[in-house]
């Protein structure tokens, strides 16, 4: 039995960039199941929070404690970035790349990449160069490349921002399936419909602070914070 990766305990974590605090201090515990949705206006710190949890941004204060050694923790997570990074390679080589980094044989890596490409609907473009894909296809590629690691914890930063309705539905289905296979998921989004469809709980972020973490149903009917209430009303937040 492998030691579970979660919970993750964040204590008084804050991030300073360009002379001002853009996140935190945040104290929270990431429990081991479900889908959490990060909501908040542009610039509220969603991307920064996700990257800090994942470890690609270093906090200036505070600590992160995984349930396993920190070196092992990253190996069991995956991240889909807000603007997907596409390697200057074919689609297939993009998707198989994480496996080759981990020493999986080329043939096996390619076979598994084909399977994951099929899962996100990229089978037709396998041999194309990654850079010529459309915006939506690039996001699908990034998702497949994250899923191929079969992570215990998956971060997605606005994964459906460029997708049409059909593709969004496909990807939400995939995420729900992945969740039921036991992967913990944290997604940021501006799509309230998506938050309703996928979320177990909602984290509402404003000006670098988590204003509340509330179970979905309650968040949409009766959020705790005044800022969340005006955000849901569609007001412009200060």
């Amino acid at each position, binding site marked *: 039995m492998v030691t579970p990766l979660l919970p993750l305990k964040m204590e008084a974590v804050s991030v300073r960039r360009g002379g001002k605090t853009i996140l935190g201090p945040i104290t929270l515990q990431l429990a081991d199941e479900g889908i959490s949705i990060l909501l908040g206006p542009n610039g509220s710190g969603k991307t920064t929070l996700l990257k800090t949890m994942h470890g*690609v941004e270093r906090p200036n204060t505070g600590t992160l404690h995984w349930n396993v050694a920190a070196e092992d923790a990253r190996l069991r997570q995956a991240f889909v970035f807000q603007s997907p990074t596409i390697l200057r390679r074919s689609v297939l080589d993009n998707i198989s790349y994480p496996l080759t980094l981990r020493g999986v044989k080329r043939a096996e890596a390619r076979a598994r990449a084909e399977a994951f490409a099929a899962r996100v609907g990229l089978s037709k473009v396998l041999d194309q160069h990654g850079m010529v894909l459309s915006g939506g296809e690039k996001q699908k590629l990034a998702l497949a490349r994250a899923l191929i690691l079969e992570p215990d914890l998956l971060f997605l930063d606005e994964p459906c921002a460029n997708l049409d309705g059909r593709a969004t539905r496909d990807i939400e289905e995939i995420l729900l399936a992945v969740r039921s296979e036991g992967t913990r998921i944290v997604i940021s989004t501006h799509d309230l419909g998506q938050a309703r469809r996928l979320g177990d709980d909602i984290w509402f972020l404003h000006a670098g602070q988590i204003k509340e973490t509330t179970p979905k149903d309650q968040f949409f009917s009766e959020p705790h914070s005044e800022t969340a209430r005006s955000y849901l009303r569609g007001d412009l937040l200060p």
Partner: protein
Amino acid sequence: MEKIWEGLTQAAMLIVGFDPDLMEITLLSLRVTITATLIASAIGLPLGAWLVVNRFRFRRVVIAIINALMGLPPVVVGLFVYVLLSRSGPFGVLGLLFTPTAMIIAQVIIITPIIVSISHQAIRELWADYHDLLISLNATRRQRIATLIVDGRRALLTASLAGFGRAIGEVGAIMIVGGNIDHATRVLTTAIALETGKGEFGMALALGFILIGLAIIVNLGVHMLSRTERGSRW
């Protein structure tokens, strides 16, 4: 104008006639410069990538020094190599002075900073794009460098070609360390200098046209090779 015409016709005749001296000089030029370019690329390309991926205390200083070395006068490099390789110098026992090897050493010293500098520039842009992904995927330092070199290969090819162009046309350093010895270390540029000195402008111009032609052919050849690669728009 007449001189140029004369040079052109003489060049054409020498080439069409496979003039043995000319062939020898040309082939030596190519051998020396291609070897130097390969060695300098093997050093310079990974070093360029390494300088991007590693953050250490004196990184900026090192980069500044390499950029400064780009402007190093070749004659000074030639003198430096000459002193090292001369019989009384530290490497005198090797007996390399006035051999093609000495010319290769001088050219490697001249073009490595160019190759490092250009590849560093190109890799830096790619790294800015790849950074978060490679960190996220836990790529080791070696894997990061390898990925950047493989995916940035077109830009790196340009760096190597710039080095080749500089080396094939270089005369000061290889004149000093090679000595322009007939049938031993005479290459296109030193032959041009010699013919010009003798007042043989036709021959000098002929050699010059061959030099230019070579540079163009090598560049076109590499360009075509890299275009046949799949996904060449990128």
